[in-house]
C-alpha cells in the first residue's frame, strides 16, 4: 500500500489526474473494511482526510452546501440541517453506531453507491445536486443521475465528489423517514423510505416526493405514484390506487438480507403509512 495525503484540493486533484487508478479514501468506514479483508491489497490510496475545506457546511440564501467530507455526526449537530433537512438528519442517526457516524462521510456514502446507502432516500426527495471536481474542472449532476448500478457511479476517472447542494424546500405539510432493518450498527437496511408532501388549501396534493432505498440496484423515486397523486385528495380509495402503482417504480431483489416479497410488502406499508399519516 502507498498513501498520498494531499493537504490542498488542488494537490489532490492533480495527484488524482496523475494516478487515476488510486482509490480515494475519506472516513474509510467502507474502504478499510474491504482493505482489512485483503481484497484491496497493494492499492494506491489518495487520502482526502486532510482536505479541511471539504469538511464544511455552508449556506447561501437559497441553499446549503455540504462538503464531501462532512460526517454523519456533523450533519446531526448543525442547526440549519436539523431545521431544513430533518429527513437527512434522521437517516444519518441510523447509520452504523456512533463510531461509524463520527468517521463516515456523506461523499463516501454516495461514492460507495451501495443499494443500501441510507442517505440516498432523503437526498432523492430533497432533489440534491452533487458537485464533482477534477483537474479539468467542475460539473454538477442531479443526485438521481449519480448512480450507474450496484456499487457503480457515473464519476469519471480523476473526478471526486466535492460537495452536495440542497435547495431549501418550502415547509412540507408532511415529512417521513423510516428505516426497516435489524441491528442498525452492523446490519444493512432492508428498506429505507423518505417522503415529502405539500398540500393545497383544499387538501389536494400540490407536490409529492417519495423515495425508496434498498429496493432496487439504486435508490428509486416513485415517479408513477407521485404523478398519479398530483391534484388529488389522498382519500383511502386514492391511497389504495396509489399503493397499487408501486410495482411500476421499484424492482426489489431476493438476497441474503431479505426477500423480494418482504420488501414489496414493507414498501407498500410504508407508502400507505405516509399517505394516510395526516388523516
Amino acid at each position, binding site marked *: 500500500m502507498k*498513501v498520498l*495525503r494531499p493537504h490542498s484540493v488542488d494537490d489532490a486533484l492533480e495527484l488524482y489526474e496523475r494516478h487515476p487508478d488510486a482509490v480515494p479514501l475519506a472516513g474509510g468506514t467502507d474502504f478499510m473494511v474491504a482493505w482489512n479483508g485483503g481484497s484491496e491489497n497493494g492499492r494506491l490510496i489518495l487520502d482526502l482526510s486532510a482536505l479541511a475545506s471539504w469538511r464544511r457546511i455552508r449556506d447561501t440564501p437559497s441553499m446549503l452546501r455540504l462538503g464531501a467530507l462532512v460526517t454523519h455526526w456533523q450533519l446531526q449537530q448543525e442547526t440549519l440541517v436539523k431545521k431544513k433537512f430533518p429527513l437527512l438528519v434522521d437517516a444519518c442517526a441510523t447509520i452504523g453506531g456512533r463510531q461509524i457516524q463520527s468517521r463516515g462521510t456523506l461523499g463516501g456514502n454516495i461514492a460507495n453507491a451501495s443499494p443500501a446507502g441510507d442517505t440516498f432516500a432523503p437526498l432523492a426527495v430533497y432533489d440534491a445536486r452533487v458537485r464533482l471536481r477534477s483537474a479539468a474542472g467542475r460539473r454538477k449532476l442531479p443526485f438521481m443521475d449519480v448512480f450507474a448500478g450496484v456499487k457503480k457511479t457515473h464519476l469519471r476517472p480523476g473526478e471526486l465528489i466535492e460537495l452536495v447542494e440542497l435547495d431549501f424546500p418550502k415547509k412540507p405539510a408532511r415529512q417521513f423517514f423510516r428505516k426497516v432493518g435489524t441491528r442498525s450498527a452492523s446490519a444493512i437496511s432492508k428498506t429505507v423510505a423518505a417522503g415529502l408532501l405539500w398540500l393545497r388549501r383544499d387538501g389536494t396534493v400540490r407536490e409529492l416526493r417519495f423515495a425508496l432505498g434498498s429496493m432496487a440496484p439504486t435508490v428509486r423515486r416513485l415517479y408513477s405514484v407521485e404523478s398519479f397523486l398530483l391534484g388529488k385528495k389522498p382519500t383511502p380509495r386514492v391511497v389504495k390506487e396509489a399503493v397499487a402503482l408501486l410495482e411500476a417504480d421499484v424492482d426489489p431483489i431476493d438476497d441474503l438480507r431479505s426477500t423480494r416479497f418482504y420488501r414489496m410488502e414493507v414498501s407498500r406499508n410504508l407508502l400507505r403509512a405516509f399517505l394516510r399519516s395526516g388523516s
Partner: protein
Amino acid sequence: MTMPVSITVNGTETSHEVEPRLLLVHYLRDVIGLTGTNVGCDTSQCGSCTVLIDGLAVKSCTVLAVQGDGSDITTIEGLAKNGELHPIQQAFWDNHGLQCGFCTPGMIITATEILKKNKKATEQDVRHGLEGNICRCTGYENIVKSIVAAQSVAPAKKAGKAKKGTA
C-alpha cells in the same frame, strides 16, 4: 516507504516513521506500547478498538495511522488520573460491568463520549449509544447499569478529591 506521523496520545506527543499500511490500533499497541485498546474483529463490527480522536469515538481498526497525523487521541490508558480510576472505570468495577474484559476498554471509551454529550443519559440512551459495541460475555445488563451509575459517581469523586486537598 515510510511516512512520518505525529499524534498526541493521552496528552503526550508521539512521532514516528510508519508504514502507510499501519492501522491506528497497531500504532497504539505495537509502536507506542499501549495495549489496552483491543482488536476483536478488524471489520468495524465489535467496537473493542474504540478510541477518541479529537473527542469523538472512532473504531481504530479501520483508520490508518497516517490518517491520525496531527490528531489528539485518548485511549483507555488516558482515563485514570493520579492513580484514581475515571468515574466510568470505577462504576464498571462497582457494578461488575465486565467478565473477560476484552470489550471493556471500547465500552468505557464509548461511554465517555455518550455521557459527555448527554448529562442525564437514561438506560435507553446508553443502550442506543452502545450500538456499535459488542460483548460476548455479559449480556450487556451490567455494562449498561455501570454507565448509568457512573453519572452519580462523578460528584462523589469530586468530594473525594476535595477531602484530599484539605488533608
